[in-house]
């Protein structure tokens, strides 16, 4: 029941491209990455049923020449779900654009703050005791 090489290559390319796009900053690219990944996974799901055959319609094909219907049904569900979530993310991209004026996924502000704190701690190694109790305004000034 091994899938064939052609499809394997298609899957490899789709997943690689999808993953690569996913790791970008532009939300639109990420979104396209998700769509591409969705295509890859849907193909994989459908292909998991086995090699090509006749459509599983009792009126036109004999059971033994039919493809496996179950992965098709599952892939159909997956297609719909991917679509639904894509549109949602699209709307989110739009919302982000209209709120922030860009559609990039920038770094988390609070995490950045902790990184700055770490830098500061590194430079002032002596004043450990003071920093043990951080509820002092030094940090607030940095915000």
């Amino acid at each position: 029941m091994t899938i064939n090489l052609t499809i394997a290559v298609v899957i490899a390319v789709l997943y690689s491209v999808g993953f690569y796009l996913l790791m970008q900053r532009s939300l639109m690219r990420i979104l396209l990455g998700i769509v591409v990944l969705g295509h890859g996974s849907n193909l994989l799901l459908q292909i998991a049923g086995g090699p090509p055959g006749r459509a599983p319609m009792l009126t036109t094909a004999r059971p033994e020449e039919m493809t496996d219907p179950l992965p098709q049904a599952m892939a159909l569900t997956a297609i719909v779900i991917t679509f639904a979530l894509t549109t949602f993310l699209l709307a989110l991209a739009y919302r982000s654009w209209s709120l922030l004026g860009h559609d990039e996924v920038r770094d988390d502000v609070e995490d950045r703050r902790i990184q700055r704190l770490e830098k500061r701690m590194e430079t002032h190694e002596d004043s450990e005791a003071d920093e043990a109790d951080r509820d002092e305004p030094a940090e607030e000034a940095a915000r």
Partner: protein
Amino acid sequence: MMWVFAVSFALLAVAALLVLVRMLRGKTTLDRIVAVDVLVTLLVAGTCVGMGLQQDGSNIALLAAFALLAFIGSISASKLVEKKEPYR
């Protein structure tokens, strides 16, 4: 009769690959829109040939739907281009 289908498929496949080249080369977005539209039409044609090959026409609605879809997708994209790019 088999060879007829094979030749048709081959011709359509070559055509599709040529169109794909246009798709990649652009150069304007409209070119790409047109290319996508043609690709879908070729796909419909190919599917149609396949139906002939399998002697199974129970899913023509599929083709009907495809024929419409390419149209709607392309229209919306071209409308976008029309709006986006500068007017004369």
